């Protein structure tokens, strides 16, 4: 610890200690910690984790939208700028136009080729997402009319689009469409029929509805004040949905935030717990070997072979989860009870490989106890495998939770979770991909965080990786 400068080749004198330590000696764990702090991957993963935590905890405070609020006029909207809507009267049931002075069916059998395309196809009133009303002129000899709707200009009789309805008589010359109307171009085609078969002629009209909202709804959603003097026909701005809406018109961002709680809780706790259990179990089995190993591994096989669905149903009943209640804790327990064998098996395999290494024998000769051997030597060397299972356990737990909420365990509707949002999103994968992409993205990010953390930890902990 001397600070004075000693020139080279000067004979040393007694009492001078020349070997000095320039910084404190590091234990294995301290060294690992330092390496971890400097590791880029670990740092990135830290940022991601912090980001997710903020999203989950602080998000709902900043974005105060009710995740359960349904808006059936904005189903499955892609992310976009806030739309404008027209204030409209509440929907009132409408009677179709049926002419008195026109026959409802032809008197004699009509030749289908004589039925002409209807003329005068027009909308009645302003077309909105609440309703689109059409009328047309009757066709002589018709026994009814079929109405089709498409989203592009029809190119022929086979391309008329969705068959919406068929009116029951030649004198019913109007139709009201309320089927899932969005603000886009619609092309309606009217085809006359003879009461049974359709003719080969049709007329098309293009209609673009505006989004409608009633006064009550607007107040309910907090878009206007209760005493606002906004008039029917004026437009107001709808709520902004940065991530779009889901299949019942609920805000995706709010649902993602609420779903984060469940998914991250399950996705982090469950894997940690069952990996921990798996490590202990597999470590024991591998280290002690022999009969104990056999017994423990047979039990692990037993657990794996049990039919998963059946036992989940049983757990649900055993834990007495009431209908519609969120059984998160029982599900956690169930996941742990059925998820540990894979880790246990892997760890055991590693331990079997490691325990025959020279340094283990050496340490034992030095007098190390078993617990020391396990903690100091064996475990760090199994880190690689453990971290891999951890990375894979996370999405596995999230999707198992989604599957379980299908059968009634886990979170009850309307509470979302990322996994169940994925399940729902898959159905509309091709037409509304945003419903699948966003939850899947969040799951991927979480998995990425764990992956990077795992890599960082491996580099920090594993002695073999350090010697580079």
């Amino acid at each position, binding site marked *: 610890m001397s600070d004075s400068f000693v020139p080279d080749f000067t004979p040393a004198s007694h009492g001078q200690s020349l070997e000095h330590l320039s910084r404190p000696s590091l234990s294995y764990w301290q060294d690992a910690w330092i390496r971890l702090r400097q590791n880029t991957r670990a740092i990135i993963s830290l940022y991601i984790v912090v980001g997710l935590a903020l999203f989950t905890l602080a998000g709902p405070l900043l974005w105060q939208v009710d995740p359960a609020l349904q808006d059936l006029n904005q189903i499955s909207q892609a992310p976009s700028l806030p739309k404008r809507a027209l204030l409209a009267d509440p929907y009132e049931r409408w009677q179709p136009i049926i002419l008195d002075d026109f026959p409802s069916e032809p008197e004699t059998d009509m030749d289908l080729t004589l039925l002409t395309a209807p003329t005068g196809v027009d909308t009645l009133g302003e077309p909105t997402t609440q309703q689109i009303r059409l009328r047309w002129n009757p066709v002589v000899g018709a026994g009814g009319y079929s109405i089709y709707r498409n989203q592009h200009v029809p190119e022929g009789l086979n391309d008329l689009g969705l068959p919406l309805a068929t009116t029951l008589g030649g004198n019913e010359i109007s139709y009201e469409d309320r089927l899932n109307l969005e603000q886009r171009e619609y092309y309606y085609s009217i085809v006359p029929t003879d009461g049974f078969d359709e003719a080969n002629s049709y007329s098309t009209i293009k209609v673009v509805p505006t989004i409608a909202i009633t006064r009550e709804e607007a107040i309910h959603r907090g878009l206007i004040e209760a005493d606002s003097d906004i008039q029917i026909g004026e437009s107001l701005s709808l709520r902004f949905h940065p991530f779009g809406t889901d299949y019942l018109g609920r805000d995706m961002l709010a649902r993602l935030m609420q779903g984060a709680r469940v998914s991250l809780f399950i996705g982090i706790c469950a894997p940690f717990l069952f990996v921990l259990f798996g490590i202990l179990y597999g470590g024991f089995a591998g280290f002690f070997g022999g009969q104990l190993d056999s017994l423990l591994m047979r039990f692990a096989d037993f657990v794996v072979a049990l039919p998963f669905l059946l*036992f989940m149903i049983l757990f649900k009943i055993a834990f007495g989860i009431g209908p519609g209640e969120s059984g998160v804790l029982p599900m956690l327990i169930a996941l742990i009870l059925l998820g540990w064998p894979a880790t246990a098996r892997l760890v055991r395999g590693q331990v079997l490989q490691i325990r025959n290494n020279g340094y283990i024998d050496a340490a034992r000769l030095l007098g190390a106890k078993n617990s020391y051997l396990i903690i100091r030597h064996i475990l760090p060397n199994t880190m690689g495998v453990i971290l891999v299972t951890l990375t894979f356990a996370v999405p596995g737990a999230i999707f198992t939770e989604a599957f379980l909420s299908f059968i009634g365990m886990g979170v009850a509707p309307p509470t979302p979770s990322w996994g169940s949002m994925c399940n729902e999103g898959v159905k509309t994968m091709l037409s509304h991909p945003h419903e699948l992409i966003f939850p899947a993205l969040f799951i991927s990010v979480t998995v990425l965080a764990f992956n990077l953390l795992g890599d960082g930890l491996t580099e920090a902990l594993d002695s073999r990786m350090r010697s580079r």
Partner: protein
Amino acid sequence: MLAYTLKRLLAGIITVWFIATATFMAMHMVPGDPLMNDKAVTAEIRKNLEIKYGLDKPVTEQYFIFMGNMLRGDFGISFTQQNRRVNDIIRDHFPVSATLGLLAIFFAATGGIIWGALTALYRNRLPDIIIMFLVILGISVPSFVFAALGQLLLVNINGLLGFSLIPVAGWGTFSHMLMPSLVLGLGTMALLTRLMRSSMLEVVNEDYIKTAKAKGLSPLRIFFKHQLRNAILPVITILGPSIAAITTGGFVVELVFAIPGLGRYFVQAVQQLDYTVIMGTTVFFGAFLVLMVILVDIIYGFVDPRVRLQ
């Protein structure tokens, strides 16, 4: 070796017995039974049905009857498909699932080993990053998405070509098996890639590798002779149960690709509470799993001589 195998087989039989018992009990504890259906039947008919199927006896007696039958190899007749014996169901459909599963494992194993090795050898360079990105995508996206996308891909390829190059669904020829087994093996492939990577990384820096390089051995030789054998143990550990899991869990793939495999029966039996099929498939898969694990443990000894099991 022989004594070891025999001991393991005996332990395996006991394990299967435990599996059967636990499943039997669980099955009877769950509410509902195979005789309930959408259209309710009168009490008399129900009574008759119970007597006919032996469900009127106390559960313990049913258990012993079942055990007796099982030892004779008779799993009874399915409740939902009332003219098919469970043995026939397993015999007809297991080979399909097995073929699908083995092919999937083959894809998963070769893919996993190759990609894993590549990421380890090119650590932190472009191949590593791309492959790891795909691995993460592969495990973050649920398997039914891949099944749907895979089928869609085939439809588009066929449409582009104007004729059906690869069938989009069904079973029968080798080209029927390609896409389903690929989709089925994806998850395991991702896991194996990751495992292989981490164990390869450990091996790559070992001294004996440096020695081999110093001796002038070609990288390929080093890979096959040294790195692979040392790194492959975790892969083998997973492979055993993976085979069993993939053969069971092919439910989604079998559904989407209209494959007459056993996985569908496995899941539907639980939904329908078809007692006989549940017991038959569970016991069969349990035995299959146990066998696979035994096989894997024996292979351990060959691959890594340092591992002594006694």
